[in-house]
């Protein structure tokens, strides 16, 4: 790019990209804070998303809860249907409506 000069905005953007790609790789962002015991590493995590916040979590959690239960996708956070709580959804057909009937399980 020594002998060429960008004259409009699009060319400027291209130039920026080319220069960035030719340079050393950019440093990855500092790792987010992971609360103790938090299953951040799944995408998204249980308590926090991959950026350490909540913006990437399922909203509301009740929408996705029974998927976690039947597939034991969050085995340390949600009771699994396979072993610990086969009847967990018995009192509650749709978690978004009946979430007040969901039990806390102590395995």
């Amino acid at each position, binding site marked *: 790019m020594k002998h060429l000069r960008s004259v409009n905005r699009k060319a400027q953007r291209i130039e920026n990209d080319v220069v960035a790609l030719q340079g050393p790789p950019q440093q990855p962002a500092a790792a987010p804070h992971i609360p103790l015991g938090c299953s951040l590493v799944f995408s998204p995590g249980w308590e926090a998303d991959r950026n350490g916040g909540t913006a990437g979590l399922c*909203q509301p959690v009740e929408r996705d809860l029974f998927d976690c239960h039947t*597939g*034991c996708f969050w085995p*340390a*956070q*949600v009771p699994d249907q396979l072993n610990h709580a086969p009847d967990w959804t018995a009192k509650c057909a749709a978690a978004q409506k009946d979430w*007040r009937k969901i039990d806390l399980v102590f395995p």
Partner: protein
Amino acid sequence: MKLFTIVAISIAVLVQSLAAQAPPPKEPKEPTEKEKEELDSGIPIANELVRKTCSPCHKVDDKLRLSRISWRRTTPEGWEQTIKRMISLDGLKLEPAEAREILKYLSNTLGLAPEEARPAAFEVEKRMIDYKYAANKDAEEVCTKCHSMGRVISQRRSKTEWELLIAMHRGYYPLSDFQAFRRGGPPQTQPGPDGSPPDNRHPMDKVIPHLTDALALKTPEWSAWSANMRAPKLAGQWAFAGYQAGKGYFYGATTIKPGDKEDEFLTETRYTRVKTGDVIERKGKAIVYTGFQWRGRSESGASGKDSLREVMFLDRGQREISGRWFTGAYDETGIDVTLKRIGNDSIVLGIDHASLPAGSAREVQIHGVNFPANLSAAAIDFGPGVSVKRLVSATPALVRVEVEIAKDATIGPRDIGVAGAFREAGAVVYDKIDEIKVRPQAGMARVGGINFPKEFQQFEAIAFNNGADRKPDTKDDISLGPVDVTWSIEEYTATFDDDDKTYVGTLDDNGLFTPNVDGPNPKRKNRADNYGDVWVVATLKLPDGKVLRARAHLLVTVPLYMKFDQPEVAQ
């Protein structure tokens, strides 16, 4: 007859052909040296109740070792969780008294040495800390995808046992294969940085050699501790010192009396909250496992409402017991407690105003035990630059003095002495507050209150002086302890039009965050629950008009729908 002959011949031919097809009996494979060594490392189970209860499933060998059980060591909590799983998933039936005996036997015979249990103390003390397992990246990644690393480092197992533990996880939670145990993506083709061939083992296979080595069943620490282990002799008077974020310091005394068994104790504790002068009395009982692991429960008042679980560690000399007393649906509220055995000497526990501004005079309370009756001001020593002007009053547990801090006193911590007994760095002399910091820097709370309990988060602001180099955030910065500040919540902008601040909850004047209720909120976009992340901001206005600010990140998140917990270890 003819028919009989045909049938007989047919049967004979069939039997012969079946015999010819049957594989030859297997020669028993000779175990290798390593396998022999592993087998020999198993710990015999002398307790008949344990053998009787567990042997329907766990095979007993000629040396009284039970399959699986004899090749594992862990904390009382680790054993309790296993016993609970045997009951809930494997059909074990136990009376509470039997469960207690089995738990105690396993924790004592297949327990951890103090050096092994200490690094994992945060797990049983239920501390919300940032823990980094530096020893092996693969192990950290594989295990913390679902649970705390504390569960792992409080285990000691043989190689086969680690393999079977992973197999157990894969059996009970089949998806863990995809989530953690097996490698995803295309195989590596590039050699490693040192030129070694590409390592395409699954993460679980990489982890087993590390765990077998780093968290081995047979260790010098356990050999030494188990040879010397005994029920501790704790009966007597103990000085009590505690600190709770948001409440400050507590000082008092605990009486420990013998309980029903030699490793069980009854306690009576009376302590004063220094900031308010409130006196709290608690009665409790405790079991000491493996000679040093205190697991207790104490209650205050007649109703027994204010119950605290106690998890502490006894030092080798049996002179100090320290740990955490906690409560809360997520064990989030707790006091850091240290008990020191009271002998004939005085003990200085601490003072009410630990930070002393240079060029000022004030009255200070010194809390302790066994202060002599004929105390004089000359016997009280605050170190250079701080002179004791007058002894205001003195009892064996509390001395009030007037001190004057010289204008040119060197800033830094001071040991406090009363009649020859010293409290290291009990006070600190400073000239000004340079900055404040919010603790914890990353907090977490969980919505609740309707169906699930709330998890609270207590914040506190700690004042700092820049120290002798006058530069912030250097090693010589001096902590001046907690200060009263004004608290507020600010938005942590993570998305466009972020509205978390409005919904997550409230922060009181004392820095205690109370999350909002659980469940979908119809007022929020997408009926989202009341979670979100925000800044918690502390503001301190100094006498000279200068304003100091500090902030911390707060994650307000989903409840836990399943709670792995073992409160039974204290009962």
